[in-house]
């Protein structure tokens, strides 16, 4: 590589802006940098384009709704339940909206490529738990007529809790991989927002899977993982987001 000159490609970088004089860094910085760069592996593959992401979200939503319809009209798909299970549509729509919005907030890069502001990420991480009460409230209000099936459900929803943790962990892994070492701002709160999005997708999955409308079951098995995952995201995922 040729040695870069102070004049740059077309102009003097001293004119690049700012109110105070500029000076060139010592030449050994560039020498050491080139030596390090020569030993670097090829760059991480580019993340999917924004357009692909925007297309993927409605497609995923349509897929989930299709699955919902299929489950509702084919008891064979619910081999575990052995009967036809209905899904409370307002609950499913509310959970789906929460999952999509939190995912967009957490993964958005914006025009500058630096993502959403800290305050937006913070609100996303903090509000997803309280907002997830809403679809569950719809469910409790509507109730279910799966009395025989509900007798087999764990009253504290521990199996649901375990399933939810697994789904949220996989979701978080996928979302973190999408943003890994690419956004240099607010890694902690971005990780928490990713955790909240992962929890929201797990909440939606459980809503479609488990017919329980018992508040105790819903609180522990369905809601608690959603509350926990922003913390888990901030604790675990931020080290993978840092540039």
């Amino acid at each position, binding site marked *: *590589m*040729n*040695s*870069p*000159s*102070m*004049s*740059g*490609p*077309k*102009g003097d*970088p*001293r*004119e*690049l*802006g*700012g*109110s*105070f*004089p*500029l*000076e*060139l*860094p*010592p030449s*050994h*910085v*560039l020498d*050491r*940098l080139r030596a*390090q*760069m020569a030993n*670097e592996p090829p*760059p*991480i*593959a*580019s*993340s999917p384009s924004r357009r692909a992401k925007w297309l993927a979200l409605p497609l995923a939503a349509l897929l989930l709704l299709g699955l919902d319809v299929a489950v509702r009209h084919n008891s064979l798909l619910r081999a575990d339940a052995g009967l036809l299970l209905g899904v409370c549509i307002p609950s499913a729509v509310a959970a789906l909206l929460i999952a999509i919005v939190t995912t967009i907030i957490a993964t958005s*890069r*914006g*025009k*500058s*490529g*630096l*993502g959403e*502001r*800290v*305050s937006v*990420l913070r609100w996303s991480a903090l509000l997803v738990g309280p907002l997830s009460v809403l679809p569950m409230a719809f469910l409790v209000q509507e109730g279910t007529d799966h009395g025989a099936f509900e007798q087999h459900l764990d009253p504290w929803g521990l199996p649901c809790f375990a399933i939810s943790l697994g789904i949220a962990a996989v979701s978080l892994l996928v979302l973190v991989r999408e943003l890994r*070492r*690419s*956004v*240099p*701002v*607010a*890694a902690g*709160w971005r990780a928490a927002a990713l955790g909240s999005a992962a929890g929201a997708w797990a909440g939606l999955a459980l809503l479609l899977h488990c017919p329980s409308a018992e508040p105790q079951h819903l609180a522990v098995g369905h809601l608690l993982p959603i509350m926990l995952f922003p913390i888990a995201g901030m604790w675990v995922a931020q080290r993978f987001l*840092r*540039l």
Partner: protein
Amino acid sequence: MRRPASPERGRSYVVHTVRRGKRARASDLATSGLDRSTDHVGLHGRCGVTATMTMNAVWARGQSSEPHYTRGMDAGRLLVADESLKHDARAEELRNLASQAMNRYAAGDDRAFDDVYALLAPRLYRLCICLIGRTDADDLLQEVFLKMHRARASFVPGGSVLAWSFAIARTTSIDRMRHRGRRPEDATSNERLEMHAGGGHSSPEASSFGRALEDVFEQKLAALSESLRSAYVLVKMEGMSCAEAGEVLGASTSAIKQRVHRASEELKAAASEAGW
């Protein structure tokens, strides 16, 4: 450095005043015919470079368009009376050049690194000095470019490479200071002397009386909290808009304005305590 041919009334200008043999004071604004009541007076300085009093002055409304900076300054002279660089077309053009070079670099053209380095290194080096001190600035700059190299594929085409690189520099400086458990004001006296010696831009006037102010400024700037210091450095010293600085720091525009205001107030208070 240039003077505007005919200053426009009510428009913001950056004015550097240096009084020969005397310390520049805020009262110089009044003697030069500027309206102090509407002025935002702030202190600026830079490690190792001319540190003088800088005033973001607003030309008095209702007065003639005569360039007032020629009036009442017989005891000294005005070094700069320049429009804010924030909206400078040339700066904008060069920012675009830097972004274009980064786009090529992100797309896999390794030769574009030369352009990226040539355009960004001086700006980033200055920022590194302000964030972490001159001693560690070399290592920080190297680490920042290495991180940019590793993450080049994730650069959003069309994004602001300046904001992106500044954000990397800021987070890297925080990590380094956290790792070492120190703040930039822990610089040794030798480092401080080195800072002074490194500034090749000092004028005789500035070196005669600017050093004390520079010391006060550097110490107080380094003692500010990280959020205040970063906001102040980006807006007041790097010439970014509050919106751009907000993107770099992940904060809203109003939050940046508040931080810059608080930092300016603290710096002014420190200068007042030191007798300026």
